[in-house]
Each structure stands twice: as structure tokens, then as C-alpha cells.
């Protein structure tokens, strides 16, 4: 039971972190390497808010909001790069370096504790497990469903899907594609900030907190193939692999196995896990 909970917890954390990347890559075709930097901003912004007496949950939401605003401001900077996908990788990574260094200058490099909304344990089927991690699993499910609903059932989602399918055509029928892009990037950034704030209580806060998640998150996003359901499947597959291998060998081997498995899956299913190879 503990193993199952561990897998679910790891999967939910990875899912939350990867959601922002998925939104930006899926709709804009941009690999956003600034993600770890934006996560750190979200975490430190909610730390700052909670230091000023704001309740933890509200502080986390404020952190996410701050990053979404920052994302909306940053997006025009990247606009001239959309025709050069490889250069977007470089520019967004440069952005991440800048953001991280600014955080270090402002807050220092030393880890800071950040108290979550509660550090109690909950017992499920005879196994005691961190309540906060359990809550995170719920948050991941809710976020995934909410985003899916947003894309499927709202006008904003319709516009986003139209831009995703054919940007030129969308523009020619009157969709303000640059506004869709700005909104999408802001949403992706906000999700990055939220994930940073959500994982902040799990370990002492440090400026590089997001970097370790970048590669696994990338891999699951590529495996997901532009669908949130695919993302959930990819996250569960990879988290299960990693947790099980780590249990039987070491976390180092698990990290390597994770990357190799993901690479092989990608090689076999370049369009994503849920899609057929021929489609």
C-alpha cells in the first residue's frame, strides 16, 4: 500500500509540474525551458506572501497569479522566436538563468523552510501517509480535469485548439492569435508557479527547486503527445517505473532507467503514447 501511495504521490507531483509545460508545448509548440525559473518564482512569491501573514493556501494562489502576470509580460519577448523552435529552447533557458540568479540575489542561496498548510499524517488501509501529499494527489486530479474541461468546453479552449490545429487559418478567420498565445503562455506560467508553490512545503525551499523536475517533466510531456489524458498515462507509467526501480536498486539507477525508458518509448511512439504510430 505504501508503494502504491508513493507512486501516486510521485505521479501527482510530476503531473502538476508538467501541466504548465504541456499547455505551452501543446498549444504553442514551444519548449519552455524557463519553467524551473517560473516554478521558483511561484514558490518564493508564496513564501513572501505567507511571511506577510497571508494564509498558506491563499499565498500559494497569489504566487501562481504573480507568475501568470510575469508570463504575460514575458511572452512578447519570445514572439519573434516562434518560427525558430530550437532558438526558443535557448532563449527560455537564458530566461530561466536570469530569473534564478535574481532570486539568489534577492533571497540568497541557502535553503529556507516553508511550512505547508499542515504536516499531519492520514491513515489509509493501515498505512500512515503525509496528509499534504495525499492532498496533492487530489489537487492533481482536480487540476487535470479542470484544464481538460477548459480546453473542451469553453470558448477560450476552442480558440486555443483552433490555433493549435492551424494558426494561419485561425488568424485569417479573425482569431486574435497573438492574444491566444499570450494567454496560453500566461496560463502555462501560472501553472508553473502554482506547481512551484505546491512542491515548496515538501523540502526546504531553494532557488534550483525546479531544475530537477525539468527533464522528467519534459519526457512526460513529449510522451503525452498533446493530450492531458496522455499526460496522466505517461506520468503514471514513468513514476511507477522510477519508484519501483528505486525501491529495488538505487535512486541513481532509477533516474537513468527513467530517461532510457522514456527515450525508447518516444522512439517507438513519436506521436505520443495514446496515439497510434500511423496517425
Amino acid at each position: 500500500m505504501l508503494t502504491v501511495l508513493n507512486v501516486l504521490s510521485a505521479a501527482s507531483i510530476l503531473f502538476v509540474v508538467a501541466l504548465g509545460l504541456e499547455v505551452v508545448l501543446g498549444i504553442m509548440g514551444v519548449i519552455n525551458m524557463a519553467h524551473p525559473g517560473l516554478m521558483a518564482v511561484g514558490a518564493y512569491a508564496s513564501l513572501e506572501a505567507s511571511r506577510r501573514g497571508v494564509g498558506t493556501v491563499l499565498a500559494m494562489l497569489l504566487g501562481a497569479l504573480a507568475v501568470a502576470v510575469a508570463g504575460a509580460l514575458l511572452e512578447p519577448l519570445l514572439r519573434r522566436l516562434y518560427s525558430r523552435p530550437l532558438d526558443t529552447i535557448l532563449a527560455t533557458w537564458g530566461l530561466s538563468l536570469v530569473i534564478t540568479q535574481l532570486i539568489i540575489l534577492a533571497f540568497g542561496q541557502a535553503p529556507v523552510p516553508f511550512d505547508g498548510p499542515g504536516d499531519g499524517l492520514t491513515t489509509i488501509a493501515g498505512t500512515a501517509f503525509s496528509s499534504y501529499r495525499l492532498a496533492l494527489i487530489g489537487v492533481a486530479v482536480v487540476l487535470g480535469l479542470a484544464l481538460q474541461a477548459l480546453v473542451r468546453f469553453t470558448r477560450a479552449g476552442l480558440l486555443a485548439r483552433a490555433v493549435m490545429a492551424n494558426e494561419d487559418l485561425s488568424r485569417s478567420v479573425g482569431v486574435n492569435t497573438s492574444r491566444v498565445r499570450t494567454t496560453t503562455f500566461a496560463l502555462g506560467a501560472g501553472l508553473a508557479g502554482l506547481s512551484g508553490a505546491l512542491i515548496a512545503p515538501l523540502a526546504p525551499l531553494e532557488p534550483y527547486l525546479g531544475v530537477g523536475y525539468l527533464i522528467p517533466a519534459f519526457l512526460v510531456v513529449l510522451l503525452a503527445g498533446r493530450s492531458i489524458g496522455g499526460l496522466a498515462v505517461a506520468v503514471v507509467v514513468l513514476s511507477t517505473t522510477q519508484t519501483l526501480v528505486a525501491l529495488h536498486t538505487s535512486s541513481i539507477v532509477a533516474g537513468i532507467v527513467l530517461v532510457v525508458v522514456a527515450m525508447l518509448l518516444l522512439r517507438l511512439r513519436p506521436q505520443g503514447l495514446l496515439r497510434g504510430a500511423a496517425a
Partner: protein
Amino acid sequence: MTGRVLSGLGRRPALTITAVIAIVVALTAGNGYYTLQLLSVACLYGVLAISLDLCWGYTGILSLGHAVFFGIGDYGVAYFGTRIGRGGSITPDPSVGSMLLGLLAGLLVAGAVAVLVGLLAFSGPSSDPLFPSVVTLALTVIGYTVALGMTRLGKDSGLFGYQLWPDRSVAWYVALAALLLVVLLGARILVRSDFGLLMKAIRDNELRCRFLGYPTSRVKLAVFVGSALLAAFAGGVYGAYQGVVSPPLLNFLFATEILIWVAVGGRGSLYGPVIGAVVLQVLGARLNAEFPFAWLLVLGALLVLVVTLLPDGLYPTVQSLISRLIDRRRTTGSSPDRTERELVEAEVVGAGGPVQLPGTAVVEIADVHRSFGALQVLKGVDLTVLAGEILCLVGPNGAGKTTLLGVLSDGTTAFSGQIVLRLPQQTNLAGQTPGRLTRLGVGRKFQAPNLFDGLTVGETMCLAARRGRLPLPWRRSRRIEIGPEALRILEASGLADRIDVRVSTLTHGLKQALELAAAVALRPRLVLLDEPTAGLTVEERAAVGALLRELAAGGMTVVLVEHDFAFVRGIADRMAVLHDGRTKVVGPVAEVADSPLVREIYLGVAR
């Protein structure tokens, strides 16, 4: 031979190298042991920057993993330069022999890793240019984790103290500067060779290279592995000189720094990345000591600014500014690196084998279907193409003409049905790659001009004329030997006088002519032309028509898609009407063009 290699160095390397040396000397001001050491390391970083530039700047493979290859080289020397002493502690024990052994081991490991990574990144069905970046990014994670985990490699504290001749810093500096110079000159010969042309062509338009018959995946693999070996070599020498290695050397942050040297200096320019590496390394070491964290901030901001505003980097920008100041007469369209190539008419043999008898079948297409998702485009095409004929495919938009040509020029497309080629040996088309088909004698001209924007007319023809035979990495051909037909297209269109002009600056009509010339220069037995006259003037059309007739008379089979009925009537032997994914009528032009069916479905006349 030596003369040719030396002439390959080109016209003005001396000037640039002098400038590089001047910068280096200027930076040495306030000479001291520390500065000397800084510059020695900078020389090795210069070599590392060249290795990435060959891979990324010239071939378009964005590798985020070059730090790993550098690190493997260093770890190899570290491994053999240390030994396990009493109680399991690792003590340095450097010697020249162990260094060489370590260097060799590092090269072997780096080569093997690069082959594995390259196979994964380039040979897959996905030609996504992002994929190699993701694979190499993953490589940095694996490399870092492995180095952290291995006791014999010193885990997180790494290995140290195995440097060779630590007290001969001046000799080291001279040797390392010489190494940088040799690598720079070698790389210059490579990028100016015909192989270098191919690298740039793959960067600009890999798909087109495949249709010219080049095995691009293998070329990319070769460039990547060679580049990784160069990086590992630099890392090994770095180990012998510095005698320090630790996991962060393999980390993504260092990989980013290498990228920044190349991006800021100017990818695809060799000197730019070297200058970038030397200047940023020396500057960085000084600033980092005084303002820690601020330097990384500067680097990150520099990366963002250069990539968004000056994607070519500083060196090419400054260079073009200077040359514009010096020589105002130079036309902006001409390549700064003048080709010194001339067009030569040559007797070029076709793809091999005797010419088929006119009237025998060259292509037999039976019941071919192809669909894109739910959309069925070809719903049962039956067609036989005869040797030496000009067959014109007509049909309304969406009838499947281009799709059919696409299937014919790439047997790996997903289609059902049977297509047999007799060129003249019988080949089943299914599964044949574009490169293989080109070598068998199938040439293709795309509907929209689809060429190499960074290359000149002459360079494009040089690649086309080789017909997929891989060029040697040091040879720079002076003469472009093309067949009389292709030469005539170039002369009639005026392209022959513009061989030093960049393709990106040509007009639409000239691009079309160049496309046609490139397709014909392959000397195919079967040439597939998608709207060869689109965007051409009436005179140009007539010239193209006469040329096609002549090619057919010489035994070449031509299949073309064309909307201009007058043009088709003038040149084609037979006509095939495609409608709604099926072949409706096939027959002599005069009969088919006037048939009621064609009037109805193609010209839109009511029955």
C-alpha cells in the same frame, strides 16, 4: 594535394587569426601565472566551442550534451591518472603513458556514447529537430548521475591532482594555443569543403538533401560523433593540464555555457565561437571572482538578447558591418565567402544500366490508396508510365496529383497497393527511401521551390551534381561538372551568371529554374515534376517545354503535374486524368484533353 589543402584555407584566414591573437595578447595584459592558466584553459574551451559549432552552427543539430563528452574525456584521463591506494583512498599517479591511455579510453567511451545517442536521435521515424536536443539533454542528466554515483570516479568530490608537468605553464600555454590553431584550421578546411556544403545544406533543408540522394541521417551521425570526439579530446587534454574533474563538469549548466560561447560569438562562423569562448571565459573568471551570481545573470541575459535580436551572433554581424564599410560596391546578395567555383559541362552518365526501349513500362501503379487520417486522398490509382514519354497528370485541386508524386518519390510513405519500378531492373517501390530512389534514378522537383537558403546557386548545383555520393571532408571542388541539359537551364535562365548569389535572394522564377536544374542534374531515368512552369513567363515556359521534349528524346521519362493546358498539349505524349483519388482516363493528349469527361470534371463545363 598539399597545395589544394592549403588553398582550401581560403583567402583571408591570416587576417582573422591575427585578430584572434591580438585579442588574446590584449587579454594577457598584466601577465601572471593566473592569467596564463586562464588563457590556457580558454584555448581548450575554444576547441570545445569549435566542436559544438560544427555540430550546431553548421549542421543544425542543437546538442545540449557536449559538456558530457568534454567531461568523459577528462574522466578518462583522471581514471588512468589516479590509483586506489591503501584503505581505498584514491591517490594521483600521473604519467605520460597513463595520460595517453586515459585520453584513448575517453575517446573510446565518448565515441561509443555518441554513436548510441546519435542512433537514437537521428535514425528514428521522427525527424523532429527538437528530438536530438531532448536526447542530449537527457544525456547530461545520465552523465551527471553516473559521475555522482561511481566511487572510483570520486563521487561528488571528483578526482584531482593528476595534472602533468604542473610547473611548465608557459610551455603548456604555447602548446595549447598551437592546438587551438591547428583545430581551427582543420575545421576551416572541413567547413569549406564539399562535405561542409552538405552539412550546411542539411542544416537548411534536410528533406531536400534526402531527395538529392544523400543519406542525411548517416551524415548527421558522423558529424555528431566526430564533434563528440573532438570535445572529448579537448576534455582529456584539459584533464592532463588542470588535473581536476568533478560531476558539475558534465552538468547542464556547463553545457549551457558552451552554447552561450557559440551563440554569442556567432554560430556557423568558427572564429566567432572561438572568440566567444576565450573572451567570455577570461571575462567570466574575473567578474565571477568579484561579483558571484552576477556573472550567470549576465550570461543568461546575453543568451536571451543574442538569440532573440542577433541570431547570427556578434562575429558575423561585426564582420558584415566592416566589409560593408570597406567595400560599399559589394552587392548585398553575394555570399561573403566567394565560391571560386565554375560551371563545367561534363559527360555525366545516368544512374546505370542500358536505356529502356521506348514504349516499355517504367512504372506500374496498381490500385494505390493513400489516406491522411480520415481523409482518403488516393482511392485506387492505376497507371502505367512508359519509357521515354512525357506523361501529364491533370485533375482539379485535391484530386491527389501531388500526393501521387509524393508516394512515387518516397516509398516509405504509408500507402496500399502495388507500385513496381523498372529502371531497368525491377524494384518494388514500397519501403524505398527517397535517397535510395534517387540513386535508382528517380528525380523530383517540388511544387513550391524548396532549396537551401544559406547556399549559393553554384553550391546548390555542386551538391545536386554529386547525386548523393558523399564528398570527402577535406576536398573543395573547383569545377561543378553538370550535364549539358542542366547547364542549358542555368544558361537560359541567367542563373549561370549568378552562381555566387545566395538562393534566398533569388526571384521566384529563378528558384523554379534552379529546382528544375537540380532535378535534371541528377540525370534521373524518371523525373517527377510538380508544376515546373508555375510562376514562369511565357518565354520561360516555352524554353522549359523544349527542354523537356529533348530530355524525353534522350530516353528520360517525365511525369509532370501541370494546369496549363496549352503547355501540356504542346509537349506531352499522354495525359492521365485524376479525379477524386482515382484515374479516370488515360490516353493520348489530343483524345483526353477534348474528352467530355475532362471538360466536365476539370474545366467545369456542365454536361
